[in-house]
């Protein structure tokens, strides 16, 4: 059992970091092995924001192997050198935690595939997100712990999705935590509640087509599946509709891009989702109490039906 939440403000910005923290914290009983945020902040759109990790959180409950901080430092150094070789200029650098970094990069190449492959060829390095607006932050612990650790409550933006995870199919570590970046597409992220039963079949097919998987978490398949559809020219909504039959199992998932937020529910409607929709705000979560954390007043909500796909623009 995991919990997912998302919201999109239409026509304005808001404190999405704080709002999503409240929504995910309300769902912490659904799992607090790890929590992840995909925040679409207000930026000038000039530089790429790259969130990446050079190691794992080896705190209590982690399934990762302990490494010395000097190993992280060495990996960071190689990343910096690789960026310089590719002509990517680091405009701003933040090292929130020894293993977690945020770079603002001046880099004028649209195809991020080669860029990502170069960076991730460095052992122990994984790009969590890459985009002009998207920032994926995920770590072990519940929503408040992760929010406090990364000071997310002050991030202002238009939309966000997040995930409170109870690890069932893969390890308790950052690489298996949601959200997943829609590699190699800029500003695409996915969160998922459910279980995919044709993960390995799909993974083999997609890997043969050149797509990349970083974990063995079945939810990563959704991000890769949608990315592959979009690579072949499909719109986000077309890709999501195809996933209803292409993916087998039970699922409710959210996907976000730079200017949109979407949801899809499997054909058996086996996983919960409550949705609130108005002209200026859409908020949704695994349980109504998530929505209540941002809208405490009496509101009209509903459960989307089986096989439903919806996409909203900012």
């Amino acid at each position: 059992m995991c919990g997912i939440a998302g919201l999109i403000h239409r026509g304005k910005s808001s404190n999405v970091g704080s709002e999503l923290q409240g929504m995910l914290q309300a769902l912490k009983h659904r799992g607090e092995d790890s929590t992840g945020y995909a925040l679409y902040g207000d930026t000038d759109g000039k530089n790429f924001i790259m969130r990446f990790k050079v190691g794992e959180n080896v705190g209590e409950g982690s399934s990762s192997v302990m490494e010395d901080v000097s190993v992280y430092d060495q990996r960071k150094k190689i990343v910096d050198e690789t960026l310089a070789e590719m002509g990517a200029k680091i405009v701003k650098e933040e090292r929130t935690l020894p293993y977690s970094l945020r770079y603002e990069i001046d880099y004028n190449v649209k195809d991020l595939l080669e860029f990502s492959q170069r960076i991730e060829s460095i052992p122990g390095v994984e790009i969590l997100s890459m985009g002009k607006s998207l920032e994926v932050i995920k770590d072990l612990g519940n929503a408040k712990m992760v929010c406090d650790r990364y000071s997310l409550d002050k991030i202002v933006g238009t939309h966000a999705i997040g995930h409170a995870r109870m690890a069932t199919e893969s390890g308790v570590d950052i690489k298996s935590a949601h959200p997943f970046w829609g590699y190699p597409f800029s500003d695409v992220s996915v969160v998922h509640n459910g279980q995919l039963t044709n993960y390995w079949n799909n993974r083999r097919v997609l890997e043969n087509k050149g797509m990349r998987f970083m974990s063995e978490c079945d939810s990563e398949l959704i991000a890769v599946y949608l990315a592959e559809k979009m690579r072949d020219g499909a719109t986000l909504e077309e890709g999501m509709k195809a996933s209803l039959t292409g993916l087998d199992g039970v699922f409710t998932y959210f996907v976000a891009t730079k200017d949109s937020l979407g949801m899809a529910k499997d054909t058996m409607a086996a996983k919960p989702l409550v949705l609130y929709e108005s002209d200026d705000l859409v908020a949704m979560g695994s349980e109504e109490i998530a929505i209540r954390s941002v809208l405490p007043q009496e509101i009209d909500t509903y459960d989307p039906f089986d096989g439903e796909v919806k996409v909203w623009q900012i």
Partner: protein
Amino acid sequence: MANLKTVSKKSKAQSMGMHTEVLTGRTQQKFFNPDEAENFYYFGTYDVDFNKRTELDVKDMTAPEANKEIDNLMSQGYGTIVIKNPQGKHSLGVGILNKLNLIFEGSLGYFGMGSCDGPIVRINGRVGWSCAENLMAGKVVIEKNAGSCFGAAIRGGDLICKGSVGARTGIDMKGGTIIIGGDAGAFTGFMMQRGRIIILGDVGINLGDSMYDGTIFVGGEIGSYGSDAVDSELTSSDQDWLKRKLKVAEIGENFDVSKMKKIVAGKKLWNYDNLEPTEKKGAI
């Protein structure tokens, strides 16, 4: 005690599809005897007065605290309790085995009004998954929408949602009536064993999948039939009952029930014989 073996003709209840199987063997059922009523004691029940009314704000309470306070108020004789600010909390109003007029001014989360026996409840909002699960008797009315597994495994009572409901409504229900004013999702009536479901709007795929018995009435379009769910003739008894039930439920009073579809179990999936389990084991 009625000897069910001697019943040769279909009863009216059977003709309406409430149940169609002929029961055989020994029953474990104990029939109510009014002469012995004074000997019955229902644990956790109170003598309440419907005219004695109070309000309870649960905004800053956990569900167990709120439920304990409802119990406390009933013990003081309050028969009408208005709950303020439920704010989508889970498991509110569970386990009430009492006559009570309970009103929620807002929405409930998961498992609201579960395992209840007797209260009359009005929820002026929405409910999450598994509302009124295992309801034995009483009436629960939801003014807005409901989540999935609405009325799961209810044994009796009336469960009414004036809006739309999610998937698996009435899953495993064993009696009672569920009435939906709007649409219903996939697998409505999944594995239902008895009782009736009325849906005035459309219903999703796999309606009545693997239903054992009971009846489903649908006013709108059906996404698809589930395994072993089949159409049946809508009788005049059915129509009379539907009109009366909708009137009492305060929804669809002017609905044209003559155009409703009636779905029952085809009973092709039944795989039972007359052997008791112990005999069957011996035969194997």
